[in-house]
């Protein structure tokens, strides 16, 4: 056990410490809070690098190298509840990703939030979030993971509602919190069930952990109500938690609304890290998911994984469809995030951990890049978020445009040179090779087409054509101060270097990250599996890889072309003119713009039922329980009245009599007390004389 494994807890502890300190800090000293947060994040990044290097050194032979450090946490009855953290390739990769992206986004935020008066609070929350997320990543116990998971949810709530004076933000925060709670409830039930079955919540406890062979065997053989294995039930419950956290259908509704929060938050939490936590969770418990009794069927076809796959595929297409018709720059990205998460889930389902995680990592980078770019755009256009009011920004903010384009191409998966291409391609290939059905493959391809399409649409709207930026007053929220701060210069402007620099870095990664996962050199895959990576071009030639690559490239090009056909051919002149698609298919477009009316549906069903229930319980409370309480209270009042009368007419007179006697005695004695000091002294003298006399007298005889 090397120091890095033993002291892995430092990685989350540092940001937590920073959060605590900046919580104590006064609202004024911003520099303190920012430098604290960034410094702690940087340190965590260095530590994460150490951890990564350590795993890199210890991997490369056979099974993935899992190092764990467990400690007893609290005792109840006879047994100890143990917590712990672990270090394996998955953890290491996630650590690198979270700390690095987080660091960049922190730096970016110093520029973006520069004029917010709650700067300090913002960084306190951010650090807290980073701590919780890292905790999720390193947790070796489902319990510890759940704690940090909830903490993540809390910080997400706080940060979405950061501009709580905006009613929309407050509502969105509540929505996000409650929606994710639904998933988390299932998650908790799953945990409890797992504990009752397996007797431990540690993932790896050299043989005794719940993800290790013996336990899994025990879980498989037990069957529950409808004939499915306990492992499947638990896996599905846990997956429900993942669904809630990473916005899969049907719990996706909160994620787009969460864009009410500051853009860095959207980038960090709702694109790069937290929403990926669900995927990470599934990848973490993958052994449980893929546990199956029979030997004959492939690991990727257990019931749990089938569910994962279908949900992922449906989400991918569903969200992509919605994204086509959105106008808010951030909402488009949000829906694309949802659909990409769907991709990851699908990848996990069909292709195993490596496929899904690879897309997670690449997506984290380019989606963070896109969000930060969007933030820069919004910043530049003075809080304008409607893409119809932008346009022609290519001239004003070249750096942003370049980086944004890179991110967009990566997201679309433009062939060969962009990371997105390789990750998505891996998923598609796995889907195509899936043994159960081909439908996910088609869905995924369609999703890819849509992705390319709506990203093109967005880019054309935002960066090309004439500037349609409204000259009148902008929608104003808490950053009014900002306008006054850097005087109202209405023409859009490039953002400061502190914001563009992270963009550039992220763009570089968005492009280059692909090389670690090409079929020719599947380093990432083998790193997670713990095998030495080999380099051979034969990777391209094996079954159907080239075909899939070709196919997806064609799809992407097609999507880009369609986007150009609809939006690029003739530039959009005015903000009010209807969308090209809208002109073509009004009803469908309307349906898409209203997100398939999912929100309304929930509004009319669950929330209304909930209202009725609350009414009923309110009535019960008011009339049944309340009545009982009143009865008891009157009874008590009667008793107390009895007691009081007894007191007044029986006890008091006796005491009064006693007091009168005492007073009389006091008066008698008080006569001795005539305030003349010398009398007192004389009394002392007399007493002394008597005393001595008595002593002598007693001594004489």
């Amino acid at each position, binding site marked *: 056990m090397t120091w890095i494994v033993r002291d892995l807890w430092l990685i989350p502890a540092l940001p937590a410490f920073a959060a605590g300190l900046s919580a104590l800090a006064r609202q004024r000293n911003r520099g303190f809070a920012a430098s604290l947060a960034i410094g702690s994040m940087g340190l965590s990044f260095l530590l994460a690098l150490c951890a990564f290097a350590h795993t890199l050194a210890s991997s490369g032979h056979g099974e993935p190298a899992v190092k764990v450090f467990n400690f007893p946490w609290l005792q109840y009855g006879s047994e100890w509840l143990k917590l712990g953290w672990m270090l394996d390739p998955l953890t290491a990769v996630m650590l690198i990703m979270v700390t690095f992206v987080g660091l960049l986004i922190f730096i970016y935020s110093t520029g973006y939030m520069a004029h917010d008066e709650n700067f300090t609070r913002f960084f306190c929350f951010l650090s807290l979030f980073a701590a919780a997320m890292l905790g999720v990543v390193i947790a070796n116990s489902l319990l510890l993971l759940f704690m940090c998971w909830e903490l993540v949810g809390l910080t997400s709530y706080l940060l979405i509602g950061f501009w709580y004076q905006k009613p929309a933000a407050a509502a969105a925060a509540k929505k996000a919190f409650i929606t994710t709670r639904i998933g988390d409830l299932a998650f908790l039930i799953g945990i409890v069930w797992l504990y009752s079955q397996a007797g431990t919540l540690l993932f790896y406890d050299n043989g005794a952990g719940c993800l290790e062979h013996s336990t899994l065997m025990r879980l498989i053989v037990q069957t529950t109500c409808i004939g499915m294995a306990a492992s499947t039930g638990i896996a599905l419950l846990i997956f429900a938690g993942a669904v809630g956290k990473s916005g899969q259908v049907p719990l996706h509704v909160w994620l787009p609304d969460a864009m009410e929060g500051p853009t860095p938050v959207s980038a960090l939490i709702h694109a790069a890290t937290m929403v990926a936590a669900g995927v990470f969770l599934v990848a973490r418990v993958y052994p449980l998911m893929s546990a199956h009794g029979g030997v004959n069927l492939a690991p990727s076809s257990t019931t749990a994984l089938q569910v994962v796959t279908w949900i992922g595929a449906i989400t991918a297409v569903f969200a992509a469809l919605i994204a086509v018709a959105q106008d808010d720059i951030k909402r488009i990205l949000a829906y694309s995030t949802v659909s990409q998460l769907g991709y990851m889930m699908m990848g996990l389902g069909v292709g195993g951990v490596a496929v899904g995680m690879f897309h997670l990592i690449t997506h984290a980078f380019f989606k963070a890049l896109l969000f930060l770019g969007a933030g820069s755009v919004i910043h530049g256009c003075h809080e304008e978020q409607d893409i119809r009011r932008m346009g022609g920004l290519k001239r004003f903010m070249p750096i942003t445009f370049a980086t944004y384009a890179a991110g967009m191409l990566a997201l679309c998966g433009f062939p060969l040179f962009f990371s997105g291409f390789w990750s998505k391609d891996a998923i598609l290939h796995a889907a195509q090779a899936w043994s159960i059905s081909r439908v996910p493959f088609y869905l995924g391809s369609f999703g890819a087409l849509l992705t390319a399409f709506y990203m093109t649409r967005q880019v054309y709207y935002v960066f090309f054509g004439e500037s349609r930026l409204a000259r009148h007053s902008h929608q104003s929220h808490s950053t009014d101060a900002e306008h006054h701060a850097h005087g109202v210069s209405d023409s859009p402007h490039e953002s400061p270097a502190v914001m563009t620099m992270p963009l550039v870095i992220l763009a570089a990664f968005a492009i280059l990250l692909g090389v670690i996962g090409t079929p020719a050199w599947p380093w990432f895959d083998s790193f997670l599996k713990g095998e030495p990576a080999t380099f051979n071009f034969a990777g391209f030639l094996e079954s159907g890889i080239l075909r899939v690559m070709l196919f997806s490239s064609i799809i992407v090009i097609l999507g880009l072309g369609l986007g150009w056909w609809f939006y690029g051919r003739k530039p959009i002149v005015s903000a009010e003119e209807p969308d090209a698609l809208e002109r073509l298919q009004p009803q469908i477009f309307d349906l898409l713009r209203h997100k398939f009316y999912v929100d309304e549906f929930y509004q009319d069903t669950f929330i209304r039922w909930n209202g009725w229930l609350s009414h009923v319980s309110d009535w019960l409370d008011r009339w049944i329980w309340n009545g009982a309480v009143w009865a008891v209270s009157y009874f008590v009042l009667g008793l107390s009245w009895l007691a009081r009368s007894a007191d007044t007419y029986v006890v008091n007179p006796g005491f009064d009599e006693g007091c009168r006697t005492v007073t009389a005695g006091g008066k008698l*004695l*008080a*006569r*001795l*007390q*005539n*305030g*003349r*000091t*010398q009398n007192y*002294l*004389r009394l002392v*003298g007399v007493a002394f004389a008597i005393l001595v006399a008595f002593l002598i007298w007693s001594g004489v005889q």
Partner: protein
Amino acid sequence: MTPLTSCLLLSALLFAIGLAGALMRRNAILVLIGIELMLNAANLNFIAFWRYGPNPEALTGMMFAIFSIGVAAAEAAVGLALIISLYRHTKTTNIDEVNSMRG
């Protein structure tokens, strides 16, 4: 009559004089002086018993005298401060007139 006895007699005399002053004078300051005299008488006793007592090398009596001198100093300071503030309130130091504590 042995020196110890004479010492004790002297101290008894001092004590009596002090007590007389404390009891019979009407000026508060003189009462205080009387008390000081009584304390001194006590000191004399300590010294006498140290000098003629069974084991003088223990120095107990002397120590006791030292401490009681300290106590006497403190007592004098506080007492005089009291008298001064008393005088400031009721423009007199005649303790016959100061009997507002009558019960």
